[in-house]
């Protein structure tokens, strides 16, 4: 149920979406008629601006068809008619969605030939306010907007004057065409504001050659204004930028114009100008709104955006005006010098930051590496030190062993020597008591055996490491050892308590060696209790399983371990007994360590000592 509902919802959504995409695919056709030729900078700027905003932020994609009518030099009326007729036809066949007319005279042309175009399309007219201009109203266009270029020449002049505050002579130079004269008249209208402080001279109606010659004579502390220059007195065609270039190349004084046509050429400082680029931008924006179906009365025109402070960077530089306070902060600069740092400040900062961070990272890694090396080195040193210490220990062990051995051996050897000397004396004198000789001989044998057993015990200590291990039952070993020890225990009236698990506890080891350890511990325990009352002599053997290991403890009720020997208990030759060599615990320790176990000792609080060792249990299979 829910699933079906979801599918229906999805289909509806898809349907809506496909309709939307259908309307998107429907391209709107826009025709722009320019009255003059395509070489005009003003038109180029306008078109550029238009393209930058047209189709932006809109779902109505438009196809721009641009037509430069060049009516000023129209070769024949037929030609114009043919072109417009073509669009007349097209407007029936295809969908002409917007007609944009630009420049003086184009409306008049449409009045003559373009009735169909005007009827079917909304019209956007961009025009100068020339006298005798045909307005959209004259063309009976209902759905149309006019955006007229009104030049604010007085502000333009004001800005130019503030750039050169000491220059008071103003030369206004223009061409001879109607448009040129129109622009001249715009400047002329605003000159009254500046007179008499400023001295204006208007020059037009002469050839370009004369103009250039004249310009050369203009004093450098003058301001030259070139509002427009389409034709000279001999009807030779120029463009305003061309004229600006010629004039400014020959003039000693700064040259200004009133629009942004100086954009890509040399000449013209700029200032507060009418911007064709922004004119185009505004037109593009309005076109978007018109295509989206907005009515003219609902569309507002931002006339202020058409006027901008625009300067030519190179010219400002030439006139040392880059720091002039007359240049507002939000000005636009053409031909701006490529200032790498200013332009890419953030990129550079980002790269620098990245480099710094990378450097820090590398440094960090380097230090890490260094530290690691130091640690490795230290470990090696520690290891080395450990080895040296181990060697020292072995050496000390050897020294101690030698000392102990020589001491222990010296006793029987001395005894043997003097018993033998005594025998020799008896032999010489023949005065021996009966049985005395035999007694001495037996003593010699006993001492010799003692010396031999000392040697074999040392040998056994040295041989410890080379024994084969197997799986053995620790409980069985304990039982066997206790039975070996039993006669001695009985003799000393020692009671033995054994607490073992019922099941066998298997460890990996050498049965004889483990028996030796246990026997050592039992002997030590027995010895420790020699001095105490017989009733108190108890040895307790305790077994404790902990995780995967078994701990066996042998406790006695003797006097405990002396503080002095506690530290070195498991070192060889440490003994509290007169008779022992002191290697029993050392041997035990070596055996347990060789079994990967641990051995330790402690005193029991109630008296007596506890010796324990831990071995790993192996599983019962």
């Amino acid at each position: 149920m829910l699933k079906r509902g979801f599918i229906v919802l999805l289909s509806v959504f898809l349907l809506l979406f496909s309709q939307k995409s259908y309307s998107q695919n429907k391209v709107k056709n826009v025709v722009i008629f320019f009255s003059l030729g395509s070489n005009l900078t003003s038109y180029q700027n306008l078109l550029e601006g238009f393209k930058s905003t047209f189709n932006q932020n809109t779902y109505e994609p438009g196809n721009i068809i641009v037509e430069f009518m060049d009516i000023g030099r129209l070769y024949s009326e037929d030609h114009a008619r043919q072109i417009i007729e073509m669009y007349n036809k097209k407007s029936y066949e295809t969908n002409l969605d917007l007609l944009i007319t630009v420049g003086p005279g184009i409306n008049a042309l449409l009045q003559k030939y373009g009735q169909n175009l005007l009827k079917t399309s909304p019209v956007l007219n961009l025009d100068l306010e020339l006298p005798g201009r045909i307005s959209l109203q004259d063309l009976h266009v209902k759905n149309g907007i006019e955006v007229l270029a009104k030049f604010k020449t007085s502000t333009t002049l004001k800005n130019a004057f503030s750039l050169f505050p000491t220059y008071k002579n103003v030369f206004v130079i223009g061409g001879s065409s109607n448009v040129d004269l129109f622009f001249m008249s715009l400047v002329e209208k605003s000159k009254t504001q500046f007179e008499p402080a400023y001295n204006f001279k208007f020059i037009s109606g002469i050839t370009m050659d004369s103009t250039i010659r004249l310009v050369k004579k203009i004093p450098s502390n003058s301001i030259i204004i070139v509002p427009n220059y389409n034709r000279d007195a001999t009807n030779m065609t120029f463009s305003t930028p061309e004229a600006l270039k010629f004039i400014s190349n020959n003039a000693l004084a700064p040259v200004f114009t009133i629009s942004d046509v100086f954009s890509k050429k040399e000449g013209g400082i700029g200032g507060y100008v009418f911007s064709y680029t922004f004119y185009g931008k505004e037109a593009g924006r309005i076109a978007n709104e018109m295509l989206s179906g907005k009515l003219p009365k609902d569309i507002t025109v931002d006339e202020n955006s058409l006027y901008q402070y625009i300067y030519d960077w190179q010219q400002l530089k030439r006139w040392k005006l880059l720091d002039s306070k007359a240049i507002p902060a939000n000005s636009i600069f053409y031909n701006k010098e490529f200032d790498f740092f200013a332009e890419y400040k953030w990129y550079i900062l980002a790269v620098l930051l990245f480099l710094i961070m990378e450097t820090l990272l590398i440094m960090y890694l380097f230090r890490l590496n260094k530290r690691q090396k130091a640690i490795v080195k230290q470990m090696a040193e520690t290891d080395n030190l450990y080895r040296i210490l181990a060697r020292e220990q072995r050496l000390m062990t050897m020294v101690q062993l030698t000392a102990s051995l020589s001491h222990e051996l010296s006793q029987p050897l001395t005894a043997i020597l003097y018993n033998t000397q005594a025998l020799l004396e008896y032999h010489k004198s023949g005065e021996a008591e009966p049985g005395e000789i035999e007694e001495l001989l037996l003593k010699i044998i006993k001492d010799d055996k003692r010396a031999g057993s000392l040697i074999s015990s040392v040998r056994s200590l040295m041989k410890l490491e080379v024994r084969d291990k197997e799986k053995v039952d620790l409980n069985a070993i304990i039982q066997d050892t206790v039975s070996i020890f039993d006669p001695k225990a009985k003799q000393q009236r020692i009671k033995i308590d054994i607490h073992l698990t019922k099941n066998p506890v298997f460890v990996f080891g050498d049965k004889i060696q483990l028996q030796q350890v246990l026997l050592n511990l039992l002997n030590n325990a027995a010895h420790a209790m020699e001095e105490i009352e017989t009733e108190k002599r108890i040895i307790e053997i305790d077994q404790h399983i902990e995780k995967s290991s078994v701990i066996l403890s042998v406790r006695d009720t003797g006097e405990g371990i002396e503080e002095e020997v506690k530290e070195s208990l498991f070192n060889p030759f440490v003994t509290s007994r007169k008779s022992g060599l002191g290697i029993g615990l050392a041997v035990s320790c070596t055996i347990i360590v060789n079994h990967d176990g641990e051995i330790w000792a402690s005193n029991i609080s109630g008296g007596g000592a506890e010796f324990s060792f831990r071995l790993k249990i192996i599983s019962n299979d």
Partner: protein
Amino acid sequence: MTNEPDIVFVIDDEESVRSSLSLFLKLSKYNVESFESAENYLARESHSGAGCIILDVNLSGKSGLDLQEELVNRNSQLPIIFITGFGNIRMSVHALKKGAVNYLEKPFEKDVILSSVSEALALSHKLIDESREIQKAKQLVLKLTPRENEILTYILTGLLNKQIAAELNIAEHTVMIHKRHICEKLGVKSVPEIVQIAYQAGIQFPEKK
């Protein structure tokens, strides 16, 4: 003054060494007494005659070196021969400084122990003789009257009869009589002999004025 025989005391806690060494020394015609510990030896009535001690350094309980110290404190004059199973230079130097006559490492040759014992006994005799001389001299000096003692002091400073007489404000002849009495009492005939006995008796020699 008793005439006890020379005794060699063997003190070692190693039974085998003690008995074998004792037997050997007995067979070498020495009077031998053996002890298994320093305490046992000290418990014995002190021996006033000549003798020597063969002493094991590593005794259980009071060690050999401890016993040596104790004996020095008790004015025992018996020379000590140390024996040890495993000694070291420090211990031997210590023992010898304290007056031990020898320091032997086990097992030592019989000739070494025999010569050490005879040396020690000779030393013991010498010490006993010396102490007897001293006793004799002391007893002789005790016979002198206070006046004679006074004059003896002057004699020891090397003054002439005339000078002594001047010092004591008596006649020179009187000094000579005193001197003759001193000679008679000490059993000597000359001033150098008087000085020797005074020295043996331990009289402090006064400084010459």
